[in-house]
């Protein structure tokens, strides 16, 4: 009798292990989660707590660029200047990378604006907008007679990467 219970327990453990392995490679919908309300079958996510979307643009690199123009002047504004771009990480960054969090915060704001609905106007007094605008003014430092505009741009991949303009701001003075 004991052997029978031991065999059943062993089978249950093996089944749970097998289900856990399978679970790591599939996406569980809300219905699937209902079936496993006690989360007996784990889905390990480690560093990525939220599931990445399946669309290709979820892996885009985000850039923040700005340009300036003389207030009231006719003609073309100045060239686009990078304010924030995806950093090339070196081994040293593992030990010393003090701007990591501020950069991540700015990139999160850029992504928020970049993924906003184009049909819905963005509030310039919103936190993300103001954060980016302030970073641009600090990064570019235009004179008092100049206005500034920023753009959120996404690129995909490394070689011959496509460029997508995701958001273009209004013109601003300090």
């Amino acid at each position, binding site marked *: 009798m004991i052997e029978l219970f031991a065999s059943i327990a062993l089978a249950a453990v093996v089944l749970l292990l097998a289900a856990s392995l399978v679970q790591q490679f599939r996406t569980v919908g809300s219905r699937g989660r209902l079936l496993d309300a006690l989360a007996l079958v784990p889905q390990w996510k480690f560093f990525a707590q939220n599931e990445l979307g399946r669309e290709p643009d979820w892996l885009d690199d985000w850039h923040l660029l700005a340009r300036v*123009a003389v207030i009231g002047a006719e003609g073309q504004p100045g060239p686009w200047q990078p304010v924030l771009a*995806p950093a090339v990480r070196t081994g040293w960054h593992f030990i010393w990378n003090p701007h990591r969090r501020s950069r991540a915060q700015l990139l999160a704001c850029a992504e928020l604006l970049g993924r906003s609905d184009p049909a819905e106007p963005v509030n310039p007094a919103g936190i993300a907008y103001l954060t980016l*605008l302030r970073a641009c003014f600090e990064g570019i430092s235009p004179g008092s007679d100049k206005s500034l505009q920023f753009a959120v741009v996404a690129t995909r991949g490394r070689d011959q*990467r496509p460029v997508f303009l995701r958001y273009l701001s209004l013109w601003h003075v*300090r």
Partner: protein
Amino acid sequence: MKLDALELQKLEQQVLAWEQQKDCQDTAGSRAGPLSLTGLLDQRRRALEPRVD
């Protein structure tokens, strides 16, 4: 990795298309009266202040 010259050129084209499509504030005329960062920050600050009736 920053955008190179060719990518910046592509960006310029998209900016022009964006401005034409939105028909918005991004023309030279509108730069005469741009929104100020200080004004926006004040607006934000006022929105966060508690209302006293």
